[in-house]
């Protein structure tokens, strides 16, 4: 009769292979808080701010439509987003922005300010070898 530890080496090797495979596919999954705001004054872009911070406590919600960005193995989300800013900002626009517009016409002279804001939203971020998956939590 085979002992209980008869397959230990085999099991360990299988586990190692699986863990290596898994770790190479997904390095880690984190949650980030991201907010975005930009100001347009008199039809000219005046200020644009993208705030990214790692969440300090677990977010509540289910991942929504994810965005996949290219990654060269880095774990720095700010750097990855900076390299793919257009794509990321397009995705943010799709999520929905709050529009606040104020216009003033004094003695027939017009001036206007438009502020578009993405309120602070939690994103689940999966860092892979060649890509990063970013999904908002709702």
């Amino acid at each position: 009769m085979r002992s209980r530890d008869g397959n230990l080496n085999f099991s360990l090797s299988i586990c190692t292979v699986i863990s290596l495979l898994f770790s190479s596919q997904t390095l880690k999954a984190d949650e980030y808080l991201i907010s975005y705001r930009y100001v347009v004054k008199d039809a000219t872009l005046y200020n644009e701010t993208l705030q990214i911070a790692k969440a300090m406590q677990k977010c509540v919600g289910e991942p929504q439509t994810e965005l996949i960005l290219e990654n060269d193995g880095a774990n720095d989300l700010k750097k990855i987003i900076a390299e793919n800013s257009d794509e990321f900002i397009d995705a943010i626009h799709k999520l929905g922005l709050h529009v606040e517009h104020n216009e003033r016409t004094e003695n027939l002279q017009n001036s206007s300010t438009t502020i578009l804001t993405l309120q602070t939203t939690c994103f689940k971020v999966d860092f892979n070898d060649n890509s990063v998956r970013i999904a908002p939590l709702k």
Partner: protein
Amino acid sequence: MQYSLLLAALLSASSLMADDIVQAENTGLSEPTKNITVVCPECTKVAPMQEQADSEQVLSAEKDILINVTGQGVAPMDTSSPAQAYALAKRAAVADAYRLIAEKVKGVRIDGQDLIKNMMVKRSTVRTSVNAMVRNANVVETTFKEGLCEVEMEILISHSQFAQ
């Protein structure tokens, strides 16, 4: 008897005529001014505007509404390259398009103030403001010509989005 009836009829007719004259005097209008006809070119536009209001789309459960807007933006003066100018102008144009969508869907608040001193307008101010949340708007076309960027955007409004 017949004469008395005729007299009564004449008296009532004359009293009616007298009332008309008194009313005309009270309003300060002489007889010729009452016959003036005012030609107002703007008044002819009332009917088409009414027709436009009648043909305006109303959101219903059966039919979605597609809203199409074109936002405009210009690049700042101190850009380091044409590409940067384009990117910044496009961002401004998108914000303008979002604002136009918000105006169409949610409406505009308008406040006006005129300061009149010694029978003259010293200051005339009109303030407008829009506050809305815009989601799922799509860019259809972008053009950039002579520093002006135009972004055409569309949004599909369905009844289910508002039925809460």
